[in-house]
């Protein structure tokens, strides 16, 4: 058997522990799709795989037990899934054009969850369209609110939904529901002053608990969708760590621009000797220093007025 493992990996197949057998990885941006694709996944697994499917840690599917010889046929069967999920592709019928930039994951978001501050899947799909295909190893995750069910702080870029609470004091009856919820469930930035509520805006994390708790609609959501962008979290062997806050109250367009800028930064500074051409972005930032990263990341970015950029950023994490 003569195989170019570099090529097949780039094509989203895997070199498995079993000689002659590969696995196909299917990306599902935002982790949400029409149910009809499930039967297509099933069909591939039962036709060319071993009849099982693994739901991956990044919200995709991995179909194991495929013979390397069958990769072209599998790619043909993948085509309606790739097209249906609107994945950018270089050549029709030849499967995924890259695997380095990983599936963009998301919690279920405001399509279902009451806490979700935005449509996580929709934004994930928008990011996917902007960045894929790409060979660089980027991990991006989105979560609807600061509960962070999607664990976005373990990613290179973590996007956390926020809302800037709007208070109409003339609708407030001082029932105390918001103050109680903020204190018990969130960061405790609400207090009662003269029977009305004051919000310590500097510390507010924009979770929206006050809006959800308010029985009179005195608290409502801001018109603009805003986000917290966390950066350079990672799992892995060397120094796993949580992502730190980079910008609070940032908008969608700026986030996409920052991610695209970071591709340029990584292409410029990545260790040419990195195994499989793969280096977590955070290690590059450790090497160049945060200020250099920031310079590249914020190039031509027009942040909203209320955006707060954290600088400098220091990370902690585990060191062995």
């Amino acid at each position, binding site marked *: 058997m003569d195989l170019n493992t570099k090529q097949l990996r780039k094509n989203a197949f895997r070199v498995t522990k079993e000689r002659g057998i590969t696995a196909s990885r299917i990306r599902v941006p935002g982790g949400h799709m029409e149910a009809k694709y499930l039967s297509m996944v099933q069909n591939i697994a039962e036709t060319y795989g071993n009849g099982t499917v693994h739901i991956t840690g990044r919200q995709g599917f991995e179909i194991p037990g495929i013979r390397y010889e069958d990769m072209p046929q599998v790619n043909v069967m993948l085509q309606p899934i790739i097209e249906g999920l609107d994945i950018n592709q270089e050549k029709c019928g030849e499967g995924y054009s890259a695997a380095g930039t990983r599936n963009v994951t998301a919690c279920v978001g*405001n399509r279902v969850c*009451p806490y979700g501050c935005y449509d996580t899947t929709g934004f994930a799909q928008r990011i996917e369209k902007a960045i894929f295909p790409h060979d660089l190893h980027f991990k991006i995750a989105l979560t609807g609110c600061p509960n962070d069910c999607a664990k976005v702080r373990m990613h290179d870029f973590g996007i956390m939904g926020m809302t800037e609470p709007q208070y109409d004091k*003339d609708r407030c*009856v001082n*029932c105390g529901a918001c103050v109680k919820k903020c204190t018990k469930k969130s960061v405790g930035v609400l207090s009662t002053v003269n029977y009305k509520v004051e919000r310590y805006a500097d510390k507010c994390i924009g979770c929206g608990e006050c*809006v959800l708790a308010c*029985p*009179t*609609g005195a608290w409502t*959501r801001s018109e603009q969708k805003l986000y917290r962008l966390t950066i350079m979290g990672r799992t892995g062997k060397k120094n796993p760590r949580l992502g730190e806050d980079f910008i609070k109250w940032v908008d969608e367009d700026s986030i996409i621009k920052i991610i695209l800028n970071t591709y340029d930064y990584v292409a410029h500074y990545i260790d040419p000797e990195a195994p499989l051409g793969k280096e977590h972005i955070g290690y590059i930032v450790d090497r160049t220093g945060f200020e250099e990263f920031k310079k590249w990341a914020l190039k031509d970015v027009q942040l909203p007025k209320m955006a707060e950029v954290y600088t400098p950023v220091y990370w902690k994490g585990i060191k062995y």
Partner: protein
Amino acid sequence: MGYNLEKASMNDIFKTWSEEYAIYAPKCLVGKGAFSDTDSVRYSEIQDIEEIEFDKKSDFSFKEILTPISQTLFYFTEEEIKEAEVPKKGAIIFLRSCDLHAVKRLDEIYLKNGFEDYYYKRIREKVKFILMGCAYSYENCFCVSMGTNQIDSYDAAIEPYKKGYRIDNKLPAWEEVFSEHCEKELEVTPSYVTENIVKVNVPEGITLDIVKSEMWNEYDSRCINCGRCNFVCPTCTCFTMQDVFYTDNGKVGERRRVAASCMVDGYTDVAGGGAYRKKNGQRMRFKVLHKVYDYKKRFGYHMCVGCGRCDDVCPEYISFSNCINKLEGAMAEVKKNA
């Protein structure tokens, strides 16, 4: 007299009215629902007839105009008080039959229950009501059971008709402006529903023994005492007072009247730290019986108008109408145990 009017003509009439009145109607506020990307239909001041949401029930009721959620009554200094300004203009309120029936309840409480409430009266006497006909029943409505599905004590009634509106006017002062702007004059009868999916049965012969029923207990844990049911209710009239001393000068301040809820903590608190209804089931019992039992004992008709907003809004899916329908069984239960 009835009229057909085009949208543009309605807006011309709005312009005329706006000299004397602020116009309030249910309006869809985009993105103002509690959950993200959801809307809220609330009473707002409008300038254009197309701002009116004719196709949905409003989440909150018109009562916020007659009894503002938070209203400053007067300002005080060390020696003097000054009454807060009354709105300079009167108000025209667009509302449905159930809500116009609710106005009767508000009047009963604020004007006829012993004495006239000055702050209510000064707003109320400058209000005109325009009935919005109901071509169909909305979710959770039970107006037919409560006998509030139809009303004729409106100043005018309106319904969208083709690309314009149909009006039935009863206010002599408005005849001129309508006939001036109308396409044609005709007989108009406002639509009303004759059947709701939700039906309630308020049993005759409820006695106070019903407080002993087990039926209230399930609400101890189901209800979260948020008070949404009260705040959206067009007939809830309870308020509390807040005397506010301004923080930068503790000698001056204002007195505010603010909506209160019998479901929310604090409502039955008394001096010495007591509270009469601690359990949510007991609060539910108080509210339900007030709406369909003890109010009627005093005034001769039920307080609840069957708008169903309390059912629409409850985050715990507690149904007030279903609770009413449990009363008959509860009476049987307490009689059996007596």
